[in-house]
């Protein structure tokens, strides 16, 4: 069995990113009790769940895109990712409007840091998707198969991180 | 109970002897190898070719493990001992770190930078900080313990002989970390009791010019307390009995009227970065203020 260099590199990168997110999530959990009341009162689980479904669905469309090297599915993935970010943005706007920001109290500090860092990763993923999309528009044959796999790998990772973040931050308020 | 510093000393001696023996053994083996097998000796024959010996390797893995296991057991014993080993403290003193001085509280009676304790008495210090992390360390009294804002730590200390002990802050706490010294005075129970009684009474002030300067423009009184007067600031050391203390500025100067005057004239000269500002006062005001503080025995 031969392992592709690029995929191994991406896998190792994702492993180290996981340590990064683990540290941030642990900080969130360490301060969970201090912010729980604010979280319960102010987070909109239902709405965020809908936007989360968009992100989870984008993993599916990404898999289809990678399998068929399909620009159309790739476009759908980007659209779903963008919808998720719009949802995040509107959640932020609402919270900030209610006076909850990164500086207001521990909940705001940990919430905006954790979800914000995830959002930045989604954005980076969208950039990678867009680069792949553009390359694929030009000369599809010149795009190596591993590029599809690598981008898809990273996108699934970003999605998986949100599974954890959504569970800890949003579903955690139901406990 | 045995003074914590003694318990640590014994453990350090044992660990030190073990470490010295290992050190001598390893260095001797190294020197022997260099001396015996140096190429310049023109040894006959080819160099050896062995490259493993499982038994030997297992042995030299197991031997340190056994030594360390023994050290660990001793560690656990000493850890329990220095925490008091079930002996209740005879008294508790609150010690609070400030940038860059110490506050010591005996019930409601507060003093600064000079910790008085009765000799041969187990005492627990309740350590905290109002700003950054400090660490209380008087080597002859016991181990050190950090003072964290928002948390209270406890440290068992015991002074074995009467007299004074020196220590200082051990956790880097900002610009004047170096001049955050502690002076500990260990006294007989009777001397300690009379010292504490003297500290507890409000200041006996002469009033006059010095007191007028002290209350001038709310400068001194903003930060300092002199019990018995209206001065009730808490950002700086309690000055009710400042003249009874041996040093100024947490150790930066010996305490007498002349040096107090110099300190008041320009604290930044002696302790640059100190939170006590330079207040422009006339020579006469400085004289009066130094005399006023010098009378706060």
């Amino acid at each position: 069995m031969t392992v592709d260099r690029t995929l191994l590199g991406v896998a190792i990168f994702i492993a180290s990113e996981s340590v990064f997110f683990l540290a941030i999530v642990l900080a969130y959990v360490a301060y969970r009790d201090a912010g729980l009341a604010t979280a319960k009162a102010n987070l909109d689980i239902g709405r965020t769940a809908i936007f989360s479904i968009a992100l989870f669905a984008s993993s599916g469309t990404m898999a289809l895109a990678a399998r068929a090297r399909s620009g159309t599915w790739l476009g759908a993935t980007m659209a779903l990712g963008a919808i998720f970010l719009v949802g995040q943005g509107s959640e932020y706007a609402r919270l900030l409007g209610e006076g909850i920001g990164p500086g207001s109290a521990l909940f705001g500090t940990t919430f905006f840091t954790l979800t914000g860092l995830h959002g930045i990763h989604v954005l980076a993923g969208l950039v990678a998707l867009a680069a792949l999309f553009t390359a694929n528009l030009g000369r599809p044959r010149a795009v190596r198969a591993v590029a599809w796999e690598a981008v898809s790998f990273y996108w699934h990772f970003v999605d998986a991180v949100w599974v954890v973040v959504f569970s800890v931050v949003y579903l955690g308020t139901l406990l | 109970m045995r003074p914590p510093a003694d318990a640590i000393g014994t453990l350090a001696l044992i660990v030190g002897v073990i470490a010295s023996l290992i050190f001598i053994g390893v260095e001797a083996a190294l020197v022997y190898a260099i001396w015996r097998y140096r190429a310049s000796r023109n040894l006959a024959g080819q160099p050896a070719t062995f490259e493993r010996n499982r038994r030997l390797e297992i042995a030299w893995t197991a031997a340190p493990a056994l030594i360390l296991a023994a050290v660990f057991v001793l560690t656990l014993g000493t850890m329990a001992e220095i925490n008091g080993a079930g002996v209740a403290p005879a008294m508790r003193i609150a010690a609070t770190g400030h940038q860059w001085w110490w506050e010591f509280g005996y019930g409601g009676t507060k003093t600064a930078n000079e910790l008085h304790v009765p000799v041969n008495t187990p005492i627990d210090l309740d350590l905290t900080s109002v700003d950054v992390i400090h660490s209380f360390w008087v080597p002859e009294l016991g181990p050190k313990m950090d003072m964290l804002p928002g948390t209270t730590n406890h440290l068992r200390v015991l002074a074995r002989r009467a007299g004074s002990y020196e220590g200082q802050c051990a956790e880097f706490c900002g610009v004047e970390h170096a001049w955050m010294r502690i002076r500990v005075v260990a006294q007989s129970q009777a001397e300690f009791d009379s010292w504490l009684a003297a500290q507890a009474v409000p200041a006996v002030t002469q009033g006059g010019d010095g007191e007028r300067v002290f209350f001038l423009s709310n400068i001194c009184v903003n930060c300092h307390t002199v019990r018995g007067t209206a001065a009730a600031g808490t950002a700086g050391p309690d000055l009710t009995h400042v003249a009874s203390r041996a040093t100024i500025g947490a150790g930066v100067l010996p305490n007498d009227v002349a040096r107090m005057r110099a300190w008041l004239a320009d604290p930044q000269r002696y302790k640059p970065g100190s939170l006590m500002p330079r207040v422009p006062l006339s020579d006469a005001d400085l004289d009066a203020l130094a005399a006023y503080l010098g009378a706060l025995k």
Partner: protein
Amino acid sequence: MTAIPLWVRRPAGERVGWLRTVDHKAIGVLYIGMGVAFFAVGGLEALLLRAQLATPEAGLVDPETFNQAFTVHGVTMILLAVVPLLVGFANYMVPLMIGAPDVAFPRLNALSFWLSLVGGVVLYFSFLAGGAPDTGWFSYAPLSERAFAPGTGVDYYILGLAVNGAGTIIGAINLSVTILLMRCPGMAISRVPLFVWMTLVTSVLILGAYPALTAALVMLLVDRQLSGHFFDPAGGGQAVLWQHLFWFFGHPEVYIMVLPAMGMISEVIPVFSRKPIFGYGFVAGSSVAIAFLSFGVWAHHMFAVGLGDTENAIFSATSMLIAIPTGVKIFNWIATMIGGRLRMTTAMLFAVGFIAMFVIGGLSGVSLAVVPIDLAVTDSYYVVAHLHYVLFGGTMLGIFAGAYYWFPKMTGRLLSERLGRWHFWLTFAGFNLTFLPQHWLGAVGMPRRVFTYAASTGWGPLNLISTIGAAILAIAMVVFFVNLVRSLRSGEIAGDDPWDAFTLEWSTTSPPPPENFATIPAVTGRRPLWDRKHPEARDKS
């Protein structure tokens, strides 16, 4: 004519400037150049500190300057000198040692270097932007919060370390993929040279540790710039969280700095003993053990924080455990020398010096794992002495061993042995004079990071000795620098294999051609070049 040309040839033959090169050897040289430059700067900072501390209550520098100097000294030596030096040698040597034409991702490799360098530049820019960070290299909160560090120094610290760390992480990905996938035919993972093993283990440590630092830095940045409360006790945060995250990075970082140096002397000692390494499996395996354990010992930096006896006991136990695989290596190196024919070249002197000094750092390290002893001496000069015995007596002596060993391969010229001996003995004397007395200073009560001390403490004489030692150490470094410059210009021509060595980097020319090997080698043992030179006495493994 100098041995290092102003351009780097590519396999195709065209010239590429240093700014655009993606050749692993050129990038290795860039890393080493960065390390040497920052080592010099960090050394000057150390001299300033020692000059101020030579006498009690001295006023050579003001406290702000002193505090900036020791903060930047620590960050510089650890992240901008030692790590780049080690990564530089790894970059240069690993592909050669495993018979590969380059690293797995040459362009990413260049990115790693430039990020590491830019991180350093950002940190130093703070001096021009209103003051360097002055909160110590581990920058404990809340002292590093905006309330107590209102200047921009800590912000530059955060940005500099994050950017530098990103470079280091990318470099670790590159090196680990290279080692895992690009070994030449026959080079099983059980046959790679020990320096390569150590580089692989170090890469894994970097990948596990640096992201925790990045996370902590991001949180501190949120606190400082967005008024967050992660480490702000007044806002409900915990100062100790920073310490947990920092030391979760910080302790593996120690092994990140020590293991590659151990790898270097594991190459040097066998070659100059004319014997294979004793217990290859134990040396490699013990490094893996160290790597695992190093993620479980961080709180031994925090015994005085008041975590509780149970926590302290657990971390005391793990910290003692990690001494075992570390000690094993020392026995292995000495056993390698036993029965050999030792050529005491400068490289070998430094390798032996590593063992002699690292033992002291290792034993004082064990004493710091003993909780009550730690509570007595932590945050004192005892710790300063300990960490310098590990990082200078260990790592830096190992790097010097590697430098004398590999300089001929990298430049085609030998370093002067005569100057090398001066360099070694001055270093040995200066180092011990500087740091040995600091054990006593710490034990009797001198805290670390004090810009001065009261004359009444009686700490003056030992501090003066320490400062004299530092001056000797500085002279030793000047000798080394002279040796470097002179040998680059007019050193003895080395030839391909001046040491009659064992590993593949010596099978190609000095310096190696852009493609490293005319034909990719195939190997059958741990000492491929030995096997080639002695077909009658091939290694069996």
